[in-house]
């Protein structure tokens, strides 16, 4: 049974760009052999919800106020294609921890 990764994607409105990056990140994480459960929030909601501890990995296109124990990765590169490999390798590293 593959491990399920609880992914949180964060953007300004919690709808448009987070949906875009969540899709791409999910496909990538699935390609590594995991299952993915993804959710989208805006930064204010994220600041409250991340400390509750249900997320394994957080990706964002808008910075999230606060410091957290969960790995948090800037995923804007998934939208533009610039630095996309970097984002993927950061995701991979975070999951291997």
């Amino acid at each position: 049974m593959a491990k399920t990764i609880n992914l949180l994607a964060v953007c300004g409105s919690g709808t448009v760009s987070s949906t875009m990056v969540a899709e791409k990140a999910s496909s990538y994480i699935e390609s590594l052999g995991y299952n993915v459960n993804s959710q989208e929030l805006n930064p204010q909601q994220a600041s409250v919800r991340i400390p509750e501890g249900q997320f394994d990995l957080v990706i964002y296109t808008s910075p999230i106020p606060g410091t957290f124990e969960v790995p948090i990765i800037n995923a804007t590169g998934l939208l533009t294609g610039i630095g996309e490999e970097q984002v993927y390798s950061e995701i991979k590293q975070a999951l291997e921890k």
Partner: protein
Amino acid sequence: MRFAKELLLDDLKVNKQELFKKAADKLCKEGFVKESYLSALTNREKVFPTGLQTKTIGVAIPHCDPENVKKDGILVARLKQPVQFNQMGDAETKVNVYLAFFICSTGGNEQLADLRELMKMFQDKDFLTTVYKSESLLKTLLSWKE
């Protein structure tokens, strides 16, 4: 991909404020957004910028919270003179934007396919430049093969 003749603005020589006003007027007239859209859009762009430097030309995806939107749609604006935006996720970086995609989202899942295609377009090595230089904006946008 849902591009439409009534959701295009072409040959614009405007600043960012004028661009937002023109887009808001059009989207309002076509029934995609509420009166509150312009101020919601403007405020959101200040806090959460939407400029994206792609491998080819700079683009932007201005949008705001679903409560200001009546129905899903994407308005495309081609800018004769690039307009400077801040980069998404990094307010220190400026992007010269040549094409702006105003994404009206009601927050549902119906738009997912469009967002996915848009992202592929941004990462295509030729398409954005082709669109920017094209004679017919609509025809070129619609030539995108999903």
